């Protein structure tokens, strides 16, 4: 209970007036000492009730003096003749003070309850304002202004910590420099309400904003008469509102991304289905025609060309769709251990017509581990490379597919093992014309291990030969599987294309689980 000097003067005047009025009334009514005593008690109670404990105490003392002077014999002196009257005076004094105190305490409790009710009302209004439709999500300024208004303040500002730095995100009647004010920093660090330097006679406080380490900042409140407790609660509400808005924004964004991914996936599937269905129908009929055409017929060679070209078209469709999936970020490798022999076998099965009548040499080193990779992607890359090699090298020259271990388990010590993940090199080597100038350099960056790069520019279609979309996709597939791709000239003529892919390490899997 803080009272201003003018109020204190008023209280004093009231005390004097009330005691004087009571004395006058007692004298005029010719009241005896007992009646006068009760009248004075009434005055003390009234003053305490209206003006508080201090006024009550002053009234008690003044009444005691007036009672003695005007109503206890000998009158008009501050002395008392009858010892019994001493007792009466003492009883009066004590009663006046005790009842005054009781009344004052009651009054204090009532005021406190009223204050709490007001705070609760304020917080409820604030809560309602921040978490219902009246506050548009994402509008920090509206939320902060709303909070200040609820606290009865107009001026203030909002400081949020982003990336380790405090930044002023909204102010009204304050300057952006509040972000650097020591008290504001203290409020953020201690998560306690901090009293700031007052400006222009207005009290200023900083309330911390914190939600479980995810949000950090402070609300500066200037003016208003807010208790630190109320301010702290208001700060918590505002912080929750800001956090909620952020979460809403995040989930909206991720929903939009997921929806876009779903759309892209559906679109690509539809395209895939629509492109591959006619190819399938063609394949089945071509197969039937080939079967029914005798070896001696001149049509057979032509049909074989059509069948081979249909296969090629199918592979181009595969490449384009893979490129589209890579581009759309929809290609999520599905890594599983797979022996290199199976990859070579599957790739060759895909190229039956291309490899017909050609000798393919397969060599898998004895110590070559399985790969930990997406078999479908690697098979596609191998199909690409083998087709290239077959197309560019003389029909009866040898084609060599090999797999060897590289790094890690190969021969390095324990330290090497930790630093270098073991890899497997899948090589497709031919006896063709070798690499056109500049192509090896183009792929050198991939070989040097820039693994994070997934979107190197695609060489244009017009390059022909070994360039074109195919090799760029091969490189992207290798990178997507955590590996790399390199091209080099082969000793003794021809070219060597190498996919360097992570090896499977059995220790990483849970080998201990056994069935019942």
């Amino acid at each position: 209970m803080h009272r201003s000097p003018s109020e204190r003067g008023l209280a004093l005047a009231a005390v004097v007036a009330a005691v004087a009025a009571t004395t006058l009334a007692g004298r005029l009514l010719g009241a005896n000492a007992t009646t006068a005593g009760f009248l004075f008690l009434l005055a003390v109670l009234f003053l305490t009730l209206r003006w508080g404990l201090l006024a009550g105490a002053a009234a008690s003392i003044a009444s005691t003096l007036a009672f003695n002077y005007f109503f206890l014999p000998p009158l008009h002196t501050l002395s008392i003749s009858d010892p019994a009257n001493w007792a009466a005076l003492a009883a009066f004094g004590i009663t006046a003070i005790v009842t005054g105190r009781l009344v004052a305490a009651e009054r204090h409790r009532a005021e406190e309850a009223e204050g709490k009710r007001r705070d609760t009302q304020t917080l409820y209004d604030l809560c309602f304002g921040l978490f219902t439709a009246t506050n548009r999500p994402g509008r920090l300024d509206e939320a902060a202004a709303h909070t200040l208004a609820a606290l009865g303040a107009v001026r203030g500002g909002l400081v949020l910590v982003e990336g380790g730095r405090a930044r002023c995100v909204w102010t009204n009647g304050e300057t952006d420099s509040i972000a650097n004010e020591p008290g504001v920093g203290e409020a953020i660090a201690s998560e306690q309400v901090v009293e700031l330097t007052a400006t222009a006679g207005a009290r200023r406080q900083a309330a911390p904003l914190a939600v479980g380490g995810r949000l950090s900042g402070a609300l500066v409140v200037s003016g208003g008469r807010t208790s630190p407790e109320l301010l702290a609660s208001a700060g918590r509400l505002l912080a929750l509102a800001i956090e909620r808005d952020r979460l809403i924004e995040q989930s909206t964004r991720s929903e939009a991304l997921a929806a876009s991914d779903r759309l892209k996936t559906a679109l690509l599937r539809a395209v895939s289905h629509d492109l591959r269905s006619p190819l399938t129908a063609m394949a089945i009929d071509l197969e039937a025609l080939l079967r029914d055409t005798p070896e001696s017929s001149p049509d057979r060679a032509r049909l074989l060309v059509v069948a081979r070209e249909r296969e090629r078209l199918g592979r181009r469709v595969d490449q384009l769709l893979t490129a589209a999936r890579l581009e759309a970020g929809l290609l999520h490798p599905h890594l599983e251990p797979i022996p290199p022999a199976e990859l070579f076998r599957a790739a060759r099965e895909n190229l039956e017509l291309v490899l017909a009548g050609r000798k393919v040499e397969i060599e898998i080193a004895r110590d070559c581990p399985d790969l930990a990779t997406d078999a479908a992607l690697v098979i596609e890359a191998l199909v690409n490379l083998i087709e290239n090699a077959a197309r560019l090298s003389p029909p009866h020259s040898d084609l060599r597919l090999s797999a060897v271990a590289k790094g890690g388990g190969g021969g390095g010590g324990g330290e090497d093992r930790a630093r270098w993940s073991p890899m497997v090199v899948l090589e497709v080597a031919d006896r063709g014309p070798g690499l056109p100038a500049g192509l090896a350099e183009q792929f050198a960056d991939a070989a040097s291990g820039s693994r994070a790069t997934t979107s190197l520019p695609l060489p244009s279609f017009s390059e022909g030969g070994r360039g074109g979309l195919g090799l760029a996709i091969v490189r992207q597939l290798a990178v997507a599987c955590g590996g790399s791709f390199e091209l080099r000239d082969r000793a003794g003529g021809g070219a060597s294309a190498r996919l360097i892919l992570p090896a499977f390490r059995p220790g990483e899997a849970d080998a201990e689980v056994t069935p019942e």
Partner: protein
Amino acid sequence: MTRQAPLLLVVDDDAAIRRAIATELAAAGFLTVEAADGEEALERFREVEPDLVLTDLAMPRRDGLSLVRELRRTSSTPIVVLSVRGEEEDKVRALDAGADDYLTKPFSMRELMARVRAQLRRAGSSAPSLRRFPDLEIDLDRRRVLQGEREVHLTPTELALLDLLSSHPGKPLTFRQIIARVWRGAPATSPDTVRVHMGTLRRKLEPDPAEPRYIATEPWVGYRFLAEPLDL
């Protein structure tokens, strides 16, 4: 009902593919019935009770996955799914839902015939406890595996895996199916657990790791037993 030749239901929304497959199957001596979508397929299925169903996955009205589920509620007729690349997850779902095999478009007719014959051969017959494959004999009663003359010593898990795979020669088995049968669906079992045991089984079984003869990895799906059973 007696039929001279097996009756196949061909389901695809693409008329050209349907016709091409049907023509080829007819040339190979099969009878065929066609349906353009899943709903029509269900009607035809109830009418003609085919011996095998060949179905596309992406179709209007009722897709292949839903068709497989619906058929499996009442029937054990073999189902072969025809998918395109990019439908890997649907393919695995169809296998888990009860499809017996899949082919990725474009496929060769020879391969389709081989799969169809394998399914028809297996339909209704249960695997004996003594199984013979080229250079491999599995005697489950005596828990003994012979490769040529040499006995291969397998752990109980490896033997359970080999039992499951060899009882479905040619059929792709998904990780979920393998875990359900060999590990009885134990909750902590992951595909990695299966891979580890499959790895040791392969090392013991395959004479030449460069030329797998018995067990093939099916990318995205699981494993397939490659060897053809020898008639006893």
